[in-house]
């Protein structure tokens, strides 16, 4: 498989289905693991890095991960392709931007990815659509077991799985749920959510994880601690709190509908109208407007658009996706025009579509 083939497909986690998929976009678990016989990457020179990469490359492509898999040598990829994989949520920004031997293995369905030589030797990620953490855990734990039959992990009886950064030691797990919370943002109730989460030591991050801005009203809720709780306990903590946030968001949406239906309908329709007719539009504005449209579809204020289409638009209007679709590199102004053109085409009524 080549990267360009992904342009026409959709990661399984973007189907817009699954439990509470109107608000929970995806559930994700990642595990940090290191090989016992090598130093961590901070103390690995080029030859050691390459050896780690070769070792893990050999093993990960041999695992039965469910369906077709691909392995990419990140060092050999062009910048645009690395950015494409970041937008796709298949690799982290850190892996895209670092240096030396490193790679990623992922399934065609895009629900499993294994990053080699990120901050740790190995980062395993499983991604599901909707609110499905137990299924993610079963799957990732199975993959972890399969790998452990082949390699020896750095492990300490008292401290658990040893990681380069002590903030990940123990379980090495990060459990996160990507939520779309436009009504809580609109009413500024979101601050209360942040404060409550902070008290129980859960972290809130933007769409692309650590250090990223919240775009399009998307927030990732995840565990901060990794030591002293079992994986199940950490999972339970997130599983207990997320339903409260879901019902809070739903309650505020219903209150908005009840008390200011007209204003909300107006906001949603204007967003939809702009996306359908703009001639030049930035990535930020697109995210912002698509967020309103997504809520509008979920509330029945827009009836000629499906959630999977909206999810596609979020993905395909990002810079690297646009350029891969156009098969050329575009500067910012050209991207804004290309984005607007793509949106007009995808959102045109069936009878208006020239490509139908």
């Amino acid at each position: 498989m080549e990267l360009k083939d992904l342009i026409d497909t959709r990661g399984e986690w973007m189907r817009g289905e699954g439990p509470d998929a109107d608000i929970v976009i995806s559930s994700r678990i990642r595990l940090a693991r290191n090989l016992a016989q090598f130093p961590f990457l901070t103390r690995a020179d080029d030859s050691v890095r390459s050896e780690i990469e070769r070792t893990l490359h050999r093993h990960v492509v041999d695992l039965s991960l469910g369906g077709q898999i691909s392995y990419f040598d990140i060092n050999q990829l062009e910048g645009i392709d690395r950015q494409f994989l970041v937008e796709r949520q298949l690799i982290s920004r850190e892996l895209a931007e670092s240096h030396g031997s490193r790679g990623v293995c992922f399934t065609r369905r895009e629900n499993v990815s294994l990053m080699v030589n990120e901050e740790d030797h190995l980062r395993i990620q499983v991604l599901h659509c909707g609110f499905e953490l137990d299924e993610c855990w079963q799957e990732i734990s199975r993959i972890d077991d399969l790998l452990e039959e082949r390699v020896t992990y750095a492990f300490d009886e008292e401290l658990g799985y040893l990681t380069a950064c002590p903030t990940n030691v123990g379980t090495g797990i990060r459990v996160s749920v990507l939520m779309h919370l436009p009504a809580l943002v609109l009413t500024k109730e979101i601050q209360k959510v942040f404060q409550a989460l902070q008290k129980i030591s859960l972290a809130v991050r933007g769409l692309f994880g650590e250090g990223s801005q919240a775009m399009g009203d998307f927030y990732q809720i995840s565990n901060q601690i990794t030591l002293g709780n079992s994986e199940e306990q950490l999972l339970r903590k997130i599983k207990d709190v997320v339903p409260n946030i879901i019902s809070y968001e739903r309650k505020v949406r219903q209150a908005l509908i009840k008390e200011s239906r007209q204003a909300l309908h107006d906001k949603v329709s204007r967003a939809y109208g702009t996306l359908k007719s703009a001639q030049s539009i930035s990535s930020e504005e697109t995210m912002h407007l698509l967020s309103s449209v997504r809520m509008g579809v979920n509330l029945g204020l827009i009836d000629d658009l499906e959630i999977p289409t909206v999810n596609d638009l979020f993905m395909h209007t990002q810079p690297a996706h646009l350029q891969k679709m156009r098969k050329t590199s575009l500067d910012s102004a050209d991207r804004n025009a290309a984005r607007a053109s793509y949106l007009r085409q995808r959102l045109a009524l069936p009878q208006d579509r020239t490509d139908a």
Partner: protein
Amino acid sequence: MKCNRCSKMATHHITELVKSEPHEVHLCEECFANFMQQPGGSELTSGGGGGLIKTSSGLGESELEALEKLVCPTCKITYREFRSQGRLGCAHCYTAFRDELLPLLENIHGDTHHCGKFPKRAPDDSQKRYQLIKLRNDLRLAIAEESYEEAARLRDQIHGLEHGTSADAPSRDTAE
């Protein structure tokens, strides 16, 4: 949690080393910005987990020398290097710097004992020790939740495992 310098909500939680002792500082957005601009203040990475454990440069010469002398025999990273970059050099660092790391881990995680998954290939006695850690943690939680029947069951299991008599003892596959 409130900011240590004003009454706003603290959004940044920093652990600084003062005379080799970790000290927690909790700051709001605004005070954090001021804190970062102070000469000789902490060098923290942006938002990363590593930021939690980076050290301040406000240490005396003797402390710095002491940190410099603390070296992991396996990968030769000094404790000072670790504190300035936030990443350890190898698995053995966790043993070499154990005394220094434990208070740090306590600070970050509120705990210093792993009680999650562990490699199936670990030796039998490790399996048992691990199982005991896990059971004791479950027991602590059961008591906190006032689930006394569960607590009693766990206590029996722990006792059984310690004396090698329990039917509930783990029988993990360690043939590999």
